[in-house]
């Protein structure tokens, strides 16, 4: 006798529909309010402010869309496979003359149909509205297709993860929770591993790795990027492979699953072990990460590991045993502790990793920078150095940092981040990062920073060709108006001079800034901006501005200032509040000993020499009172650069 069951069994489809159909309906209504209705609201009536094109369908209330995309597929999978987790339902389903494979395929595919039906309907409605309202100006049919494809793919991925977890667990609540854990796991686990390796291995570039595309490791965080990005072909391929392999894997698990596992947290014995020690391990890493980030002390770090591991172990045990009385089961915890100690010893055996500086002849190029750029700013990131001299200098710095490993992070005065990216022979790459006290390495840093190649590699201004500049805008917060240079000849001249100034600018001009500065914004193309500074020390540029009668608009002039108050008394710490300027100004004005500058030349000398040091570390403190916008600024004079007339006054 042949079984009557085929993939188009109306009653079975109805059964799935009675079970999960309500989710489809809610999903449809949610999408309907957010997309087609929103489109109609935006592009009808008198509300002209909304008559703007959208970048993609995701632009419409993305927050709401996102919430639906991450919840609906998982909830649907939970309800769909609830029959595996309720004993009576599991018995009924598996007493029927249906093979497991058939039940699986039928439920999984029918559930998926119920999941994407609302998406397809919304797409059709949107297309209909598009043609009826003639909305070509605001979005294209292509946008609708792209939205449909992306949503279906992400829905499928989250749904498939839910189906997979359904096979692994026997409790619906655990099903939901585990699905999200699984979806976030690749990103979270990578983050934990990278962070903790950074703690254990000196020089491990955890920040460099963390910043690189970690959000693409989890479908949920990846989905959150969809508002601004399109799915790449590679992404589609990876997700397709995931879908196919998890479809097959889930089928295999279903066939091997024991029906009596309904109401067990984890349905397979071997997975219970993995689950228990996996949770303990991840919690241990999390504990370490938390206490390191909060306290940054070795003792706290150890505490974090111990506490995290123990809590994780017992939490996992509680879930598995479905009781909180698990504190007698300490044998496994002991095994775990020993395993961790062995693991740490293995990691510590990686001493060569910490000590390694590549041999000079093997280095093709090296990028040295104290800043990590990511994502959209990537084109502004530092370029590699190739000249032998510079490679040597960077290598020496690196070797010195490693030599001082124990000292580097003690009593830091001027912390700086140092990232080394070596390109070695055979295309291999070696990356290290360190936190160093800049003052310990001034000689090395000066040598590297003042080399022409380094300047070209690190300053964004060299990425712009002088004759491609559209305009240069010089902005100073103390002035009401900005200076804009847009004459092509002038911009070219200005660019050439700015580049020259950048080349001769000494290494520490940014660490001990002196004089007032303005921001220079160079527009190289549409939406392509590069920023640099106009410093008081840029004499060539200042001379050029003066010749072109632009200086007064570009830099702070004595005319911009009402007056300056100077004192040689240290300001007490309790006076330094959130907005201390007005208060300090009052104190100074009340003090007879205070020097008030109003003379043009005095003001000019003060503008050129005032620094930005800490108020209680420099001998003289000043309040600059500007005419524009009631602006006040706290400045300092160092012993070396204080103008003579100030020094005289306080003698």
């Amino acid at each position, binding site marked *: *006798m*042949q*079984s*009557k*069951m085929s993939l188009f*069994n*109306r*009653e*079975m489809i*109805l*059964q799935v529909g*009675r*079970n999960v159909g309500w989710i489809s309906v809610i999903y449809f209504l949610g999408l309907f309010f957010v997309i087609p209705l929103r489109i109609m609201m935006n592009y009808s009536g008198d509300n002209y402010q909304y008559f703007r094109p959208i970048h993609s369908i995701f632009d419409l209330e993305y927050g709401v869309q996102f919430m639906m995309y991450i919840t609906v597929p998982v909830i649907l999978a939970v309800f769909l496979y609830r029959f595996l987790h309720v004993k*009576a*339902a*599991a*018995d*009924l389903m*598996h*007493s*029927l*003359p*249906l*093979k*497991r494979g*058939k039940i699986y395929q039928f439920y999984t595919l029918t559930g998926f149909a119920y999941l994407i039906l609302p998406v397809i309907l919304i797409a059709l409605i949107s297309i209909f509205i598009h043609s009826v309202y003639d909305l070509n100006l605001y979005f294209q049919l292509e946008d609708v297709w792209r939205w449909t494809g992306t949503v279906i793919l992400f829905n499928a991925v989250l749904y498939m993860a839910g189906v997979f977890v359904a096979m692994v667990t026997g409790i619906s609540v655990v099903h939901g929770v585990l699905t999200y854990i699984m979806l976030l796991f690749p990103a979270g686990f990578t983050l934990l591993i990278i962070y903790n390796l950074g703690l254990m291995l000196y020089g491990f570039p955890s920040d460099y790795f963390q910043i690189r595309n970690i959000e693409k490791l989890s479908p949920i965080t990846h989905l959150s990027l969809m508002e601004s990005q399109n799915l790449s072909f590679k992404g589609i391929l990876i997700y397709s492979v995931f879908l196919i392999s998890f479809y097959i894997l889930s089928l295999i698990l279903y066939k091997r699953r*024991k*029906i*009596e596992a309904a109401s067990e947290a984890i349905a397979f*014995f071997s997975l219970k072990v993995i689950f228990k020690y996996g949770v303990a391990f991840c919690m241990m890493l999390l504990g370490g990460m938390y206490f390191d980030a909060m306290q940054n002390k070795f003792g706290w770090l150890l505490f974090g590991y111990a506490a995290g591991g123990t809590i994780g172990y017992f939490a996992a045990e509680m879930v598995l045993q479905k009781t909180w009385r698990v504190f007698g089961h300490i044998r496994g915890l002991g095994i775990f502790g020993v395993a961790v100690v062995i693991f740490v010893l293995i990691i510590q055996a990686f001493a060569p990793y910490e000590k390694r500086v590549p041999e000079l002849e093997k280095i093709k190029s090296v990028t040295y920078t104290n800043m990590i750029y990511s994502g959209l700013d990537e084109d502004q990131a530092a370029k590699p150095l190739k000249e032998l001299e510079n490679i040597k200098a960077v290598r020496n710095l690196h070797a010195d940092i490693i030599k001082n490993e124990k000292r580097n992070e003690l009593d830091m005065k001027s912390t700086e981040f140092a990232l080394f990216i070596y390109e070695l022979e055979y295309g291999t790459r070696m990356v290290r990062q360190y936190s160093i006290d800049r003052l310990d390495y001034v000689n090395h840093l000066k040598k590297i920073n003042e080399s022409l190649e380094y300047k070209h590699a690190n300053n964004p201004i060299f990425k712009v060709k002088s004759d491609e500049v559209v305009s240069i805008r010089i902005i100073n917060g103390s002035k009401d108006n900005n200076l804009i240079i847009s004459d092509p000849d002038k911009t070219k001249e200005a660019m050439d001079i700015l580049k020259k100034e950048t080349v001769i600018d000494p290494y520490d001009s940014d660490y001990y800034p002196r004089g007032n500065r303005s921001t220079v914004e160079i527009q190289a193309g549409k939406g392509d901006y590069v920023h640099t500074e106009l410093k008081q020390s840029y004499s060539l540029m200042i001379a050029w501005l003066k010749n072109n009668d632009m200086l007064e608009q570009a830099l702070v002039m004595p005319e911009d200032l009402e007056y300056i108050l100077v004192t040689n008394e240290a300001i007490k710490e309790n006076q330094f509040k959130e907005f201390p300027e007005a208060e300090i100004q009052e104190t100074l004005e009340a003090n007879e000993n205070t020097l008030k500058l109003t003379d043009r030349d005095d003001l000019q000398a003060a503008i050129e020499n005032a620094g930005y040091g800490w108020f209680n570390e420099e001998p003289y403190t000043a309040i600059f009172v500007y005419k524009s916008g009631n602006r006040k600024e706290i400045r300092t004079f160092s012993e070396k650069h204080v103008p003579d007339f100030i020094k005289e006054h306080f003698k």
Partner: protein
Amino acid sequence: MIQMREINKTFEKHPAINDVNLTIEKGSIYGLIGSNGAGKTTVIKLLAGIYKQDSGEVLLNGTSIYENEQLKAKLFYISDQPYFFPQYTVKQMAQFYKSIYPSWNESRFIKLAEVFEFSMNKKIQTFSKGVQRQAAFWLALSAMPEILILDEPMDGLDPVARKKVKNLLIQDVADREMTILISSHNLREIEDICDHIGILHNGALLLEKDLDDLKSDIHKVQVAYKGDPPAYLEDNLKVLHCEKRGSVMLCIIRGKEEEIEEKIRKSQPVIFDLLPLTLEEIFIYEMGDIGYAIKNVIV
């Protein structure tokens, strides 16, 4: 014919049944008796193809039942707590089963509506426990299975419904040789319909018997003699148990009825009666010590 051979099943680390061998002939009504936790439900779910055994074979007509659609289509299982899809009516459940069981008989389903006096258009979960169980029987009998597997089926049924259900079951067995496996923790509850009995205790099958054989092989006799009973009687008859009340003796004797009667009459008793035995007594005397141990189970 259903066969279980050397079946073992363990849950996690707890063994549920050990080396169970069991045979159910076509057209018989097999009663599986055991206390709570004896392993009845496990045996039943193995037979229904829900559980997979750790070792051994579960066969229907020589073929393994597990994951075999053709065989499972001949088999209908009603669990100890009948389950229906949420919000379903009897009619909707019937339509569902109809799409799955090739042997479904729609006219029978409609005819049975006269027997079960509740609406097929009401949601089953609004019914009481007993009515839900009747609904399960309604659906099961409409599916016309060759084998009906019932786990504690009489729980929650009132005497009238019990009678009704039993009649329907017997009728199907008589009409079309349906085989029934029925489990219970109470022997009395099912002794009137079973023709075979298996007793399960602590995961092992203690005995498996044809009830007719049992009944024809063991007898209760009441005799009285003038003076002492002749000694040769005890040597000639297999007396399992004997007690004296005054001059009247009450004995349980194994053997054919005619033989016993002939031998006792020869000894010229003053009183001689052959009395009926309850199934309970049969088990207790038949099984000796184990019988006493599981007395609580079978009564």
